[in-house]
């Protein structure tokens, strides 16, 4: 289970909506299962074409690097590094990564599963905007290629549970 205070839930959805049709990405930090901080990270997929190509994970739109961020994300390495340093400096834990699927369901893709291999100890959240009226945020554990959905509990700021997604 991941406990996600409502303002953080709203920040993730707003980030996804603002970046669409590009995928957004970021990190969640906190303590135990409670998210305390959202780090938005720039999607530099347009500069990471070789990374996807070498694994045969290049989408058709990848022929135009400018369109690559609509179907792939690659977190800006320097921003990612700074965020991870900040998380440790604040005495928090890196709990999860998140990204959006602007036009497809909130399920890990083959690309998501392959790259999750380097981060088996964190949750992977996906915010789908396939139905623009109903953003769908889901969390997964991805270990050795095996995907397990984990419930997200959105909590109001007083800490009470208000919705079980």
């Amino acid at each position, binding site marked *: 289970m991941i406990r996600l205070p409502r303002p953080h839930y709203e920040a993730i959805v707003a980030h996804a909506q603002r970046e669409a049709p590009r995928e957004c990405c970021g*990190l969640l930090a906190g303590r135990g299962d409670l998210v305390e901080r959202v780090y938005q*990270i720039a999607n530099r997929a347009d500069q990471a074409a*070789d990374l*996807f190509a070498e694994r045969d994970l290049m989408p058709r739109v990848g022929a135009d690097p400018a369109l690559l961020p609509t179907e792939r994300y*690659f977190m800006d*390495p320097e921003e990612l590094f*700074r965020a991870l340093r900040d998380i*440790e400096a604040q005495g928090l834990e890196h709990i999860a990564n998140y990204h959006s699927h602007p036009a497809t369901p909130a399920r890990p893709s083959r*690309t998501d599963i392959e790259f999750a291999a380097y981060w088996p100890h964190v949750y992977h959240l996906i915010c789908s905007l396939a139905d623009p009226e109903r953003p769908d945020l889901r969390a997964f554990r991805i270990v050795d290629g095996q995907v397990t959905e984990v419930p997200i509990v959105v909590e109001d700021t007083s800490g009470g549970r208000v919705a079980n997604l």
Partner: protein
Amino acid sequence: MAVTVLIPAPLRRFTNEQASVQVEAGTVSEALAKLDAQFPGIRDRICEPDGRLRRFVSVFVNGRDVRSLEGLDTPLREGDEVGIIPAMAGGR
């Protein structure tokens, strides 16, 4: 040159869960060699067999990606911090 190598969580199983390791090195490449001497196998997670940096790994000196510096030949000074992180990527 005494430098600190910051170990990312996914690689701490090589370092007995240590988050940072001190080594003596004049370049990034040398720092990785010294790290590997202490914790055999860790460099293979960072570099290809031919020695190039793996595409999905970024290495930093004081927060700057070495790809924008001199790569693995980037010189180190006393007290520098060498960071390592695997890519976070995916999509659709």
